[in-house]
């Protein structure tokens, strides 16, 4: 499937783009982050430690072990610091 992938805050800065489309067969969020870490070096540096990141699938916060299922959009970012 094709996922729209969004990056925010320092994840966006380190990857260098705010969003992109990525083809994947990953079954879970964790598996997808593992695929990203295999790409170029700058991806590896960001995604090698997924516990430091937060993920929203189709705009809902979810765990690393959540299924990707029929997702169309995944956003990856640091812990939120609003308020």
């Amino acid at each position, binding site marked *: 499937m094709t996922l729209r992938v*969004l990056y*925010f*805050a*320092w994840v*966006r800065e380190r990857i260098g783009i705010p969003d992109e489309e990525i083809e994947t067969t990953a079954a879970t969020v964790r598996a997808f982050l593992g695929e990203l870490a295999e790409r170029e070096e700058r991806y590896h540096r960001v995604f090698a430690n997924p516990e430091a990141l937060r993920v*929203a699938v189709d*705009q*809902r*916060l979810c765990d690393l072990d959540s299924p990707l299922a029929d997702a169309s959009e995944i*956003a990856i*970012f*640091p*812990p*939120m*610091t*609003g*308020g």
Partner: protein
Amino acid sequence: MEIRITSDPIDPAAELAALSGVHKAAGAVVSFCGQVRSDESAPITTLEIEHYPGMTETAIAAIVAEAEARWDLLAGRVIHRHGQLSPGETIVFVATVAAHRHAALHAADFIMDYLKTRAPFWKKEHGPEGGHWVGSRTEDEAAARRWSDDS
């Protein structure tokens, strides 16, 4: 409750005025303003707030719905800035209106704890020594957990 995500300045006094004395059954109106600090030890020139358009609205609506399920609220308002802010400017304004004071106070406290940890905003401080992303605070995570431990 009214929810706004905006790059325009927030006027806390005007927001409070719109809620005071309006609801006949209201015994308590609480407001919370979070504002850009600039300590002498860590002076900042600009606070930049990034957010996730689309998800931000949904996340705040979910937080507000949970507050409304937990406490009897008559009205309220959550307004959050994004973009470039100067020291002293209001980042977030939360107001709650209720018949009784503890409902209004606790709901405002709850909404703030959840906004800090569950709404997709990120802060970057810019100062004389450059910019850096504000790290999340473990106290904020612990504060948000208070509300699930006792429910």
